[in-house]
């Protein structure tokens, strides 16, 4: 394991948080009518998706 324990725990927390955010944005986007709000939410989905992929690589490196 090449990361410090406290970092891994912190990344784990962030991953859990971001996962719920992404789920919420994805499902709630269907419920809104305003186009601009839809755009912002789509952007949030894109950014969160990329961030979660980065977390995946850190977390799988940290696994031992």
């Amino acid at each position, binding site marked *: 394991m*090449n*990361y*410090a324990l*406290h*970092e891994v*725990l*912190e*990344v784990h*927390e*962030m991953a859990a*948080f*971001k996962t719920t*955010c992404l789920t*919420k*944005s994805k499902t*709630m986007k*269907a*419920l*809104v*009518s*305003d186009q*601009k*709000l839809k755009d*912002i*939410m789509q*952007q*949030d989905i894109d*950014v969160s998706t990329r*961030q979660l992929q*980065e977390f995946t690589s*850190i977390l799988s490196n940290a696994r031992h």
Partner: protein
Amino acid sequence: MNPIIQNITGMNALSDQVVAMDLLISAKSGVRNYAMAVTESGTPEVKEILTRHLVEALDMHEQISSYMVEKGWYHAWDTNEQINLDLNNINTALNLPSL
């Protein structure tokens, strides 16, 4: 909110305003959570990723808050106006029939 889904789900109270507010609160918690995480990390690679995410979370927070200001759902500079809006929203939530 989309009227068809509104009728299917019976969630006609879940307006764009509520969704936007939820997004704002999430963005806010995101920034705070990232600030905690950044100050706990020491490995440069992890720190760099978390710092970048923090900046992105800040951008998202900025976008959603200015959107809400524009829509008149968020009165950052007018406390009275904000309080009136809050009270209105509280009432809407309180009077919501639970399914």
